[in-house]
């Protein structure tokens, strides 16, 4: 249900609806901590929402789904939370996620495994799986997620909703628990593109407290959404229809691209020869930055601290052994390895250079096109437990999302149909700071397919009562 519809309900009924929908979906395990007395300060966006649990909030716990921060309440608040509350939005809870946002299925949460509302047997994607599942189930009209290598777009794709990763530096990360600082971004999950534009409108802009935000004017994202995209140049990322892509997913995405083609755009195939290195580059840069950022969790100033220890070194090693889950340990160790003496040149410095090559590929393509389209994920949502035994297989779920992460460009995943009875996402990428064009194309596709049969299936998920 759209934000505007939720607003018509009024504050009281909207909050009642949140908990009624949550009851309908008991066992979905999307939310870690609730605020049952949330209130609106009044404003344009006076609806309930969920924030991913890696965003600092004053009232609820902020754990990043890690045992090391169990029960932790932040003494300060993230800029996005403050801005949303000033716009009237009511934060009703903190959503489940992969621990410290590392994972592609939300199975790495230390607390619970979120299920996909389309089918409880499959994952909602990750790492922002709780936010995606809750929006898809209609528990809230929107939720915040964070995207480092695909953590908004991939769960949006798996849950059949809209997920927007804005340009690096468009939205302040102040109060976002740092994971990989050169990649982390905050963005919304919504049911419609217009809603994503409305949320972005509120959270975008320069923030003195995040030195990576830029002083670039925030345009009116909503007013440009008129369905008219005649003359826009669309590039099809042929390299993204890669080996290993599910054939039904490919078919659905190609059909979606045909629909866009029918809207008066100029379409051409584009080549991004280094995009295939996005994943390797990601799995060097991300763990390296993680190993530095997560060194603050040492059992000294806050968070879990091991008991019965004799030395300071033991406090660190044991607190982290007890507090971190397996995937977090793996990444911290991988980062420590690639940054260690003798290896830094071969891994981290090399990856930074390959990252520039990926960026240059995009720059070159964007000389001739306005947006690039591709699948968001090579597959639909996979089964719970299917990939947990093989971390590298899990990493490969990010194959098509990491290139945009590397290039700092905005990208959105919008639902474009079903394959094997589960949602498929279309990824649209644009130039840095050109969210306006990105949203315009996404919105035009959404309007052109408003009556599609699969959208009715999606809408059914959000009805109160009935079988689920």
């Amino acid at each position, binding site marked *: 249900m759209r934000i505007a519809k939720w607003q018509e309900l009024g504050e009281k009924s909207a909050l009642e609806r949140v908990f009624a929908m949550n009851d309908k979906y008991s066992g979905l395990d999307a939310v870690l901590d609730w605020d049952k007395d949330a209130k609106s300060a009044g404003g344009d966006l006076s609806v309930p929402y969920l924030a991913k649990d890696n965003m600092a909030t004053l009232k609820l716990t902020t754990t990043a789904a890690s045992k090391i921060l169990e029960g932790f309440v932040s003494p*300060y608040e993230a800029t996005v939370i403050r801005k949303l509350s000033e716009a009237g939005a009511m934060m009703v809870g903190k959503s489940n996620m992969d621990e410290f946002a590392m994972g592609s299925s939300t199975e790495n949460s230390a607390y619970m495994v979120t299920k996909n509302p389309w089918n409880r047997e499959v994952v909602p994607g990750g790492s922002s799986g709780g936010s995606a599942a809750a929006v898809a189930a209609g528990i809230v009209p929107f939720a915040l997620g964070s995207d480092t290598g695909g953590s908004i777009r991939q769960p949006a794709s798996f849950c059949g909703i809209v997920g927007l990763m804005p340009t690096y530096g468009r939205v302040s990360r102040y109060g976002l628990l740092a994971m990989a600082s050169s990649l982390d971004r905050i963005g919304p999950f919504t049911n419609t593109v217009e809603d994503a534009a409305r949320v972005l409108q509120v959270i975008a802009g320069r923030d003195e407290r995040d030195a990576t935000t830029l002083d670039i004017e925030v345009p009116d994202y909503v007013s440009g959404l008129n369905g008219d995209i005649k003359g826009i140049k669309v590039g099809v990322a042929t390299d993204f229809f890669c080996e290993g892509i599910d054939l039904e997913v490919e078919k659905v995405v190609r059909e979606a691209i045909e629909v866009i083609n029918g809207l008066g755009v100029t379409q051409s195939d584009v080549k991004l020869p280094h995009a295939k*290195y996005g994943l390797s580059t990601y799995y060097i840069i991300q763990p390296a930055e993680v190993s530095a950022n997560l060194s603050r969790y040492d059992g000294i*100033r806050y968070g879990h601290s091991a008991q019965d220890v004799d030395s300071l070194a033991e*406090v660190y090693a044991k607190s982290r052994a007890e507090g971190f889950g*397996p995937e977090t*340990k793996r990444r911290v*160790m*991988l980062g420590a*390895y690639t940054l260690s003496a003798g290896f830094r040149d071969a891994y981290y410095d090399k990856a930074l250079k390959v990252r520039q090559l990926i960026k240059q590929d995009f720059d070159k393509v964007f000389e001739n096109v306005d947006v690039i389209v591709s699948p968001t994920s090579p597959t639909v949502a996979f089964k719970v437990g299917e990939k947990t035994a093989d971390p*590298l297989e899990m990493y490969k779920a990010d194959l098509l999302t990491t290139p945009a992460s590397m290039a700092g460009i905005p990208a959105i995943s919008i639902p474009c149909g079903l394959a094997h009875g589960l949602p498929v996402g279309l990824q649209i990428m644009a130039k840095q700071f050109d969210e306006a064009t990105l949203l315009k194309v996404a919105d035009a596709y959404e309007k052109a397919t408003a009556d599609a049969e699969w959208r009715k299936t999606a809408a059914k998920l959000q009805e109160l009562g009935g079988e689920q």
Partner: protein
Amino acid sequence: MDTFCPHFFDLLLCRSSFFRYNACDMKLPREQVEWVAKLAQIELTEEEKSQFATDLSNTITYIDELSAVDVSGVNADNSQITGLTNNTEADEIRRCEISKAEFLNRAPAHQGDYILVKKVLDK
């Protein structure tokens, strides 16, 4: 001395394309996993050491594909992806909005105005 990882030079050899696929398709040696765990300040169980040896070598073998990418002439000195440089803050003292008590109360142990830690140096 633990600056360089155990078997560092063997690994360098591994990274050359000739040896890559036969020499490195195996678990990381145990002492290397222990060395990385020490750098990462994480105590591992025996089971974890064995599991991470497999997981880490699989991932390292995969990311090693970058060794074949030609990056000559690429300048990554400013790796800030939006090209932002020297975004500095005014050098002025600002009062912290968070009180001392709020910090201290979150620490596992404190005494007076100080956070308590284990002894670092012996007399």
